[in-house]
């Protein structure tokens, strides 16, 4: 961790991500405007002191919508990665540790799931269960499980035949303890990286889903939904598309810098 802090790109990434998280949490206290309050008179008004990013097609303050959207996007991304990571760790560690027929069967199912793009799986979920934030998170989360599972499994395959596992068994550790307390910590470094990359993918997936109109439902704000709405007005109000897009870029950039640094 100390070594990481010395790395310039890691620090830059940390600062950017930190600012993003702060904005998402403190959003309501920063902006005086209700993100859903419409004001016809302000429709497509440009950048001004009171509305620093201007207003959209309903005269809503873009800045506050970006802040709320950021929050939605982050919640979705965190939830997605959490489900994907937890599921992946459990499946990957059990299959990698025990091996055998159990491993073969589970990993083939995993492969099938892996063959579909995340957005497609999420689409199936949404069409089956309707669309809401929770379903979006679950859908994307499930779609993220296979990649985590594979990675964790490979770490377990590499570690399970090492002597320290045999030593732990001689010390009286059971399978559960060996899996989660002895081997799993060895997978953390790789897991950390894929969490960061997964987070980025989740941000983009959420934006994509909302852009397609199957993610977060109006009038709630999300960065992807804002982009999707803004495309019709790109000539009249370029700021409407520009600012949410910029925030997505910054968020992905911050995490990307961190993941690259931890990789180095």
């Amino acid at each position, binding site marked *: 961790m100390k070594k990481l802090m010395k790395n310039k790109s890691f620090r830059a990434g940390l600062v950017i991500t930190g600012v993003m998280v702060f904005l998402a949490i403190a959003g309501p206290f920063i902006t005086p405007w209700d993100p859903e309050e419409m004001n016809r008179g302000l429709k497509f008004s440009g950048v001004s002191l009171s509305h620093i990013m201007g207003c959209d097609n309903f005269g809503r303050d873009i800045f506050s919508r970006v802040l709320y959207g950021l929050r939605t996007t982050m919640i979705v991304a965190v939830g997605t990665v959490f489900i994907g990571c937890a599921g992946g760790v459990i499946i990957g560690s059990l299959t990698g540790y025990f091996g055998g027929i159990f491993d073969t069967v589970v990993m083939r199912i995993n492969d099938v799931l892996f063959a579909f793009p995340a957005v497609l799986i999420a689409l199936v979920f949404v069409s089956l269960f309707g669309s809401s934030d929770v379903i979006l998170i679950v859908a994307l989360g499930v779609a993220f499980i296979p990649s985590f599972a594979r990675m964790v499994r490979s770490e377990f395959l590499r570690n399970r035949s*090492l*002597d*320290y596992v*045999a*030593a*732990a*068994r*001689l*010390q*009286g*550790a059971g399978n559960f*303890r060996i899996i989660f307390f*002895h081997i799993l*910590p*060895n997978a*953390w470094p790789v897991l950390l990286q894929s969490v960061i990359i997964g987070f980025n993918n989740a941000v983009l997936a959420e934006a994509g889903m909302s852009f397609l109109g199957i993610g977060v439902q109006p009038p709630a704000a999300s960065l992807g939904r804002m982009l999707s709405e803004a495309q019709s007005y790109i000539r009249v109000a370029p700021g409407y598309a520009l600012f949410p897009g910029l925030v997505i870029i910054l968020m992905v950039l911050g995490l990307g810098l961190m993941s690259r640094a931890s990789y180095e």
Partner: protein
Amino acid sequence: MNILNVEKLNIEFLDHEGPEKVVKDVSFNLEEGGILGIVGESGSGKSMTALAIAGLLNRHDMRKSGKIEYKGRDLLTIPREELRSFQGDDISMIFQEPMTSFDPRLRIGFQVEEGLGVHRPEMTAEEKKAAALEAMTAVGLENQERVYMLYPHELSGGMRQRAMIAAAVITEPRILIADEPTTALDVTVQAQIIKLLRRINSEKGTAILFISHDMSLVKQLCKEVMVMKKGSVVERGSSEQVYLHPREDYTVSLMNAIPKKGVRYYRSEDIESDSEIARAEKLNVFVGNGRGRRCIVQDASFSIRQGEIMGLVGESGSGKTTLGKALLGINKDTEGTFDIHDPYPQMIFQDPYSSLNPARTIGWILEEPLRLRSRVDREVRRERVNEMLKTVGLSEDMYSRYPDQLSGGQRQRVSIASALMQTPKLVIADEPVSALDVTVQRQILELIRELKEKYSLTVLFISHDLRVVYSLCDSVMIMKDGVIVEQGDTDHVYEAPAHEYTKKLLAAVD
């Protein structure tokens, strides 16, 4: 007449945090037809020196200075093209690992004759093949025609090292560099390779640069010896002179590090001959499952008396580790009966690099058995771990270190501590010193002896090294191809071996 002059050779790595000198002002010369031994532990710079002479150090992140003179040319500064005309022709090299020094996808024959393809383009395919077969005969490979067509994985370690030597000598080099050529091999094979090198030297007049950590091997082969430590030459002279009158303490410690045959270093005094701690009867051990299930240990019957150190000797693949793991219950696939009168027998593993969990601190690793079995408070655990660290000769600040911050010897101490944390009565030590430097080996053996007395342990000492076993063990079992061919009192077995194989093993060590 000197064939090779090395003058003030310096090699420095630049890619580490600070520049790191691995070879410092090394000067020596190799006589025409002479054999020079370079001895030292890992990190002494002996392999770096060899690689520099072979022209194999061409990385950008290093600085070389000095002179390596061959035929009036400086090998450090001549152009690559010219260097290549020497490499594999006048100067050949044999590497330590016969497993990785062959390309697994190419036939042995092709790789043996490859040097001719590069340096004797005028030779026809038939001539090259004839030369390859001749070289393979010369190094003692039987069935050359068949071996010629085989792939590396189809040969045993010894055969592969012979093939490697055949490939190195096929161009009749004037200098042969052998970098630990026998370290990865079994003792009986080691002796044969040494004999072979000696023959090549006397028949062809090839000068040999023999690099090893094993003083006794060097003594068998070399006329001249050079001792290196941390990049510098600390002592050099004729073999006799260095062995009989070593000037440096370091040389003495290197020599003492390897137990000599016939020197008894320890015998237990607290053996209770009427109480057994372990007993096996007609024990078969299997490995693998389904169609791949093979019987590795056959019909093992023995008993280990309380308080003794029993040696289990055999070459690689003889099944000694498999037997050890079966006794501990790690290999569960067994037939026959065995009894261990210790609820928690422990094991000291061969490779201290894989036997300690790299993601956990030393303290955590050592506390684990206490967390699992005795359920004592955090403070008590910490106290007991610190006590144990002191017992195995480590300081308390090891507690919060990670395994990769420790040296091989320190790791092995931790590994021993971890076994002892559970107060076992029986400890199975599986080649506990083979992965360590020779001087460290000595210290670890001493530690095992000390702890054995302190905790009145019974030890099953698995090793391929007959000298170590003789110096330490009260009784011994000799294993070959999964069968225990001979067992008994160590002194008795070593003085009057009954089985042919035991005789052969004993003849192989000097």
